[in-house]
């Protein structure tokens, strides 16, 4: 009986000496970071939803143009940058360093375009009178959660652009491996994924009908 249990323990993926998830520590670490960061964004978005439900005078400050046009454009740009990142990871897996660097640069351009569009949208709202603790239309807390949620996301995009720049440089010089490119891709797709929740909850739930 003891012998059978011993054999099972030795051959188990969890008995040590093997990788139970069949992936390197960097990739596993990134997945763990993603889950913890996803909880951070979840709490922020749930806080936004809590306040929106609890305040009857929640403003609807997003007109079709420029707010919804810009935010929809930002969504498409971010999705396109995810596609270029997929191509970069595939090129890295093939060992094609030149093509990988080009796709990563295309991804960085997408990220920079997203930030540019988002800052333009922010400036439009600031010109309309939105501040972190007040706005001309309703609940003063709107600005705090709007700038908090979108600002944290924009920070993630900016960090992602820098991160991808470092990975592209390192991979181009053969200092980083294909796994490093794949790990940076996981981060970039996660940033894209978060926006898929920010866009409908913050923008589309508060469109101006006029």
């Amino acid at each position, binding site marked *: 009986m003891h012998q059978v249990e011993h054999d099972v323990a030795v051959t188990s993926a969890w008995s040590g000496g*093997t*990788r*139970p*998830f*069949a*992936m*390197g520590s960097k*990739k596993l670490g990134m*997945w763990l970071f993603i*889950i913890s960061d*996803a*909880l951070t964004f*979840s*709490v922020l978005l*749930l*806080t936004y*939803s*809590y*306040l929106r*439900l*609890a*305040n*009857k*005078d929640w403003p609807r400050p997003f007109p*079709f143009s420029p707010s*919804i046009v810009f935010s*929809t454009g930002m*969504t*498409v740009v971010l*999705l*396109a940058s*995810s*596609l270029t*990142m*997929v*191509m970069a*990871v*595939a090129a*890295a*897996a093939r060992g094609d360093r030149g093509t990988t660097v080009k796709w990563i640069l295309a991804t960085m351009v997408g990220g920079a375009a997203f930030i540019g569009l988002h800052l333009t949208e922010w400036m439009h709202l600031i010109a309309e009178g939105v501040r972190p603790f007040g706005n001309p239309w309703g609940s003063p807390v709107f600005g705090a959660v709007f700038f908090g949620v979108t600002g944290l996301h924009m920070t993630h995009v900016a960090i992602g652009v820098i991160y991808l720049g470092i990975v592209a440089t390192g991979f181009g010089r053969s200092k980083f491996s*294909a*796994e490093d490119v*794949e790990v940076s*891709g*996981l981060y970039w*797709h*996660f940033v*894209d*994924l978060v926006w*898929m*929740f920010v*866009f*409908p*909850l913050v923008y*589309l*739930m508060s*469109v101006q*009908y006029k």
Partner: protein
Amino acid sequence: MTAHDNAETAGHAPGKASLMVMIWIGLVVITGIEVLLAYNNVAPAIMLTVLVGLSIIKAGLIMAYFMHLKYERFVLVLWLVPAFMFCVMMICIFFFPDSLRLKDSAFH
């Protein structure tokens, strides 16, 4: 690390480029549906349910195909997703009854 481990961790074969482009088109189409829906004056609860539902579908597509979760060992999904969902559901259980109570309170 053994040669077997190297082979295991060297990166999983991602889907074909054409499949990835199809997924991207699908994501853009769902985004278009969301924008169209936002301009239909339906009850907020219904709109919220549909928008969050579509967002979960988009998130699932991104995780499965772009983040290669479909090609990883299933035990990774079992490890990460239920733990995340449990935390989010616990937050929802405690947040929203209080939010609705505030909405109906005498302060407004």
